[in-house]
């Protein structure tokens, strides 16, 4: 009993114990921060990777794409209705994104999608900016530029379609803070071409002096990656310089089914900036733009084309995204879809041209994990490595605890003698110091978890504050780490694991001093004052 009693008393009264507690606290906080940030990084990679694609992706790995996707989709619907929930085709190519009448040009990865299907197979909709406040108004079809105007009382108004969509958002938004945040300054976030050409803002609309309405010719819509068209502020938010519906342009080069340039001049497309998208992965948000698949298919000559020898080509796509029903095993579904592809391919074998056969030769079925495996595994290894390295550094704490407890034993030699004179055994004395170290570990771990949690939960705020003092202190660069924000989640299991290891390490660190204490001969400890 005396062990626990004295441990509690020593914890309160021994200043030197606070150094041990501080060492454990800092080590626990350090390892927890590393594990949480790296773990959050890994989880974000997984979640974002999952949200980028659908569960299953069919791809032949070429820019020319592959034909027979519509027929295969029908085949899947018929053969695997309990597995396949939805399919949607995707075309991608590379081009140049421009804003006319400015010198704004950027390289772009252009994706042709069916927006209404695409948002059902992945998390794309969650990252749409205007669609959040004006739900249902973002589309890739023909559209004019929406222009805000004024009502009779001078209040700024958007066209009715947008006002109505916004009312719908307000009614459905469950978080009053978000509505309040919108209401605080809705009109300052407006693009006034006549007053000042550029006002950094979040929700930007052009303004006319008359009634609200639409301006300009009807052009196909384009959704632009948020880092392509906007300026990212140091705090991670964006300044939008272009009004919604502003005219932009894409230039791209069509390829023949064999993969050669068609010889035609590059194609320029005029489009309207319908929305911007934020997946949270910088490589995507700084490169990707999204247009309607029919438009891109036509411009890339991947639609039905007449053949010189008569007949027509089959339309082509680059990827077929497949969403599964809930609860369907991912890898099992991939294997079954691959089997169905083999079966389907046999049925179309007789009618395939030579080029089509070559495009279908390397068609593969992937899960989203297959596609991201190399990236995820790299991050997993990085997490293990960094945690290991910081864990090794934390081993210093064991040595420190050893030193501190050696000093405590030296200082408490007389107490050890007293306790032995009162009947305490050597084992009991060793247990006292190991329990004392364990208590130091427990208190240090609790404080370390608290400190680590506080740090992780506020890590972006801390970085923003440091960056406000000196931009060079911004350590998390979205260009380097893919994500625009540092992960801020501490997992309970990580905290328990780190704390357990810390307590155990503290106890291990105290073993040698505890054994020295156990061997103290009472008469020598008590002989003199």
């Amino acid at each position, binding site marked *: 009993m005396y062990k626990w009693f004295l441990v509690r008393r020593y914890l309160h009264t021994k200043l030197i114990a606070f150094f041990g507690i501080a060492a454990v606290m800092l080590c626990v906080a350090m390892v927890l921060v590393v594990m949480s940030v790296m773990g959050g990084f890994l989880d974000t990679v997984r979640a974002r990777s999952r949200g980028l694609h659908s569960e299953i992706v069919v791809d032949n790995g070429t820019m020319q794409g592959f034909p027979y996707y519509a027929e295969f989709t029908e085949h899947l619907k018929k053969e695997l209705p309990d597995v396949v929930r939805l399919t949607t085709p995707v075309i991608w190519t590379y081009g140049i994104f421009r804003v006319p009448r400015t010198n704004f040009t950027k390289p772009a990865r252009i994706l042709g999608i069916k927006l209404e299907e695409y948002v059902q197979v992945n998390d794309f909709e969650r990252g749409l900016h205007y669609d959040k406040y004006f739900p249902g108004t973002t589309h890739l079809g023909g559209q004019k530029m929406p222009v805000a105007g004024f009502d009779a009382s001078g209040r700024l108004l958007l066209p009715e379609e947008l006002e109505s969509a916004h009312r719908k958002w307000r009614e459905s938004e469950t978080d009053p803070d978000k509505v309040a945040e919108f209401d605080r300054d809705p009109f300052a976030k407006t693009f006034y071409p006549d007053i000042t050409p550029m006002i950094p803002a979040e929700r930007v609309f052009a303004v006319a002096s008359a009634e609200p309405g639409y301006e300009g010719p009807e052009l196909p819509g384009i959704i632009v990656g948020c880092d392509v068209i906007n300026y990212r502020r140091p705090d991670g938010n964006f300044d939008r310089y272009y009004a919604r519906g502003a005219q932009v342009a894409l230039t791209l080069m069509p390829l023949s089914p064999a993969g050669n340039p068609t010889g035609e001049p590059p194609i320029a497309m005029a489009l309207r900036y319908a929305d911007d998208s934020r997946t949270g992965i910088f490589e995507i948000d700084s490169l990707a733009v999204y247009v309607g698949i029919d438009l891109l298919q036509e411009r890339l000559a991947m639609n039905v084309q007449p053949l010189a020898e008569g007949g027509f080509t089959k339309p082509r796509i680059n990827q077929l995204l497949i969403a599964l029903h809930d609860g369907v095993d991912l890898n099992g579904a991939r294997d079954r879809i691959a089997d169905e592809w083999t079966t389907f391919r046999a049925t179309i074998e007789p009618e395939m041209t030579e080029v089509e056969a070559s495009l279908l030769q390397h068609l593969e079925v992937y899960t989203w994990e297959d596609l991201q495996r190399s990236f995820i595994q790299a991050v997993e290894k990085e997490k293990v490595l960094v945690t290991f390295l910081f864990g090794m550094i934390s081993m210093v704490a064991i040595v420190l605890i050893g030193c501190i407890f050696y000093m405590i034993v030296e200082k408490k030699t007389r107490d050890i003698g007293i306790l032995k004179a*009162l009947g305490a055994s050597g084992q009991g004395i060793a247990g006292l110091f190991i329990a004392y170290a364990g208590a130091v570990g427990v208190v240090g771990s609790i404080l370390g978890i608290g400190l680590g949690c506080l740090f992780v939960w506020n890590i972006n705020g801390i970085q923003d504050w440091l960056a406000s003092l000196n931009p060079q202190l911004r350590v998390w660069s979205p260009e380097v780490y893919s994500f625009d924000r540092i992960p801020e989640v501490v997992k309970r299991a990580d905290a328990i694991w780190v704390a357990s290891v810390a307590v155990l390490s503290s106890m291990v660190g105290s073993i040698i001093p505890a054994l020295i204490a156990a061997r103290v001969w*009472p008469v020598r400890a*008590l002989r003199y004052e």
Partner: protein
Amino acid sequence: MPQPILRARNLQKSYTMGRATVRVLRGVSVSVEPGEFLVVMGASGSGKSTLLHLLGALDVPDAGSVEFRGADLFSQSPARRGEYRNRDIGFVFQFYHLLPELSVLENVAMPRMVGLPAWKWGSLAKAARADAAEMLERVGLSERLSHRPNELSGGERQRVAIARALINRPALLLADEPTGNLDEATGGGILRLLGAFSQSGQTIVMVTHDAKVAAQAHRRVLLSEGVVREAALTVSGPRSVEPIATKVGL
């Protein structure tokens, strides 16, 4: 004739100090009868404290034996010797040796804590605290229960040490110059307290070099250069064989 409660036979002990070996005890035999107040006298360096430490199993002799109620202490396990120190004897030191972080009450209760596993403490803690408080009342410190040792005078500290030594109702009290660090008046108070416990039947072995202190004892042993030079009765012998716990109602 009563059987000795403690018997030391031919105790030898030497210490190495640098290159020199000092033979402190050169074959000391002494026995203590129940209820006896025995004083061990001798000049500084005569080996009296070493003898007391061996009798209290705080040290191990180079040769010889110490029997407590007929059982040789040094042929027993260290754990059993720990039990002996905890239950069968109580030690009072010249320099009090109280634990500075603990209150007076906690210091006195400490031997009880040492002797009990944590799972038994819960049910016995209240009784232990009550016993400690009662023992402190016996030594006249009932007003000082929550004080720390550094808030007490030397005499008060020694009273706490005596209360601590007797909390487990030991058969034998070993006192190593308990007045050696106190002024005459305060030392006199401590001697009167020990005398009262002796009167009540507590067996006491006390080390001192003060002849006036030795006059309180039933018997005295004079050590010189590591051997017993003289053993003399100062009074007619022990008057009781009962331990103090019975006599003072503890």
